[in-house]
């Protein structure tokens, strides 16, 4: 009874709708950020010309494509992964735009702090890597991923159980939770320090220096975390697709 009574976390993550009333549909800030994610991704590639010497928006698009191509596909998949470049590029840009709106001033809400977007993307990645495995290897994909070669026969049931949980259940779950919880934790931190700065500022205007400087540093840190989480989601997607194609090691 001496503990603090926290206000409900709904104040941080539930947003009022712009139109629609939640009965059949609702369009709130999360929907706006998701739509903007798609629109900005399209605009980056629509407005870049195909000159030999890049200029303007082409710099940006070539930089992003080069980043995904070199750091993600060349590092994990090799030449057989080049045809997954559009999928991984769209995934990276959508997740990055969903994360970076946390520090843009009038939005200040990461769309990935509600579990809907990360859950759907993780289920999509799950369907893609199972589909790619079945398409490339047939039904041998199931037997080779559940029971890798070189396992002694008496350990087979345990290995099959562990591999099934690890490959088919834990991968999408961990992808979802990693992205969602990182963004939610960052959002809670920024809101806490913001409210603390305002409260101390109204008390005595110099008392807000320490929380405010922490808020500035945390905003920079959240920018890095946004980029890193988008990169890690895409990197792990590439690793899972690669392990579905090459099931022999």
């Amino acid at each position: 009874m001496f503990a603090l009574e926290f206000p409900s976390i709904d104040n941080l993550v539930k947003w009022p709708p712009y139109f629609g009333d939640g009965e059949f549909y609702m369009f709130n800030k999360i929907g706006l950020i998701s739509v903007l994610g798609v629109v900005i991704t399209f605009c980056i590639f629509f407005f870049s010309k195909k000159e030999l010497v890049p200029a303007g928006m082409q710099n940006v698009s070539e930089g992003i494509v080069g980043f995904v191509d070199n750091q993600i596909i060349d590092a994990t998949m090799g030449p057989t992964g080049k045809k997954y470049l559009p999928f991984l590029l769209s995934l990276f840009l959508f997740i990055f735009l969903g994360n970076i709106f946390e520090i843009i001033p009038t939005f200040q809400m990461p769309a990935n702090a509600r579990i809907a977007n990360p859950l759907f993307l993780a289920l999509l990645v799950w369907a893609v890597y199972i589909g790619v495995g079945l398409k490339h290897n047939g039904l041998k994909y199931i037997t080779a991923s559940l029971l890798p070669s070189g396992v002694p026969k008496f350990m087979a049931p345990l290995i099959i159980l562990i591999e099934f949980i690890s490959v088919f259940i834990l991968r999408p779950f961990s992808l979802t939770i990693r992205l969602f919880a990182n963004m939610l934790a960052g959002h809670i931190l920024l809101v806490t320090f913001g409210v603390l700065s305002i409260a101390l500022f109204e008390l005595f205007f110099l008392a807000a220096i320490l929380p405010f400087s922490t808020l500035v540093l945390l905003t920079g840190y959240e920018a890095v975390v946004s980029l890193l989480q988008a990169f890690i989601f895409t990197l792990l997607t590439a690793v899972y697709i690669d392990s579905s194609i090459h099931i022999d090691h």
Partner: protein
Amino acid sequence: MSNLLEIANQSLLLLQELDATELAKAAQNEAAASGAGMAYALATLGPGIGIGYLVGQSVQAMARQPEAAGKVQTTMFIGMALVEALAIIGFVVFALLKFV
């Protein structure tokens, strides 16, 4: 020590003449809050050591063979994501206990 605290807490609650449901709710909130803090505190021990060891070994590998630095860095990121996910799941447990 915690026994004394519980006795003091209970007696103060009784003195304020709360009815039974509020008392149960306060006790549950208190238990949830202490459990939540304990859960997250324990969840950061293992991943802290894990990530420290992982990054240290990858720095050593990059120092031994600088031309393999790209591959080592990529593997370090993959390992860091997998280890940090455990600490993040602990944070989700904390949020679920405290706010739901």
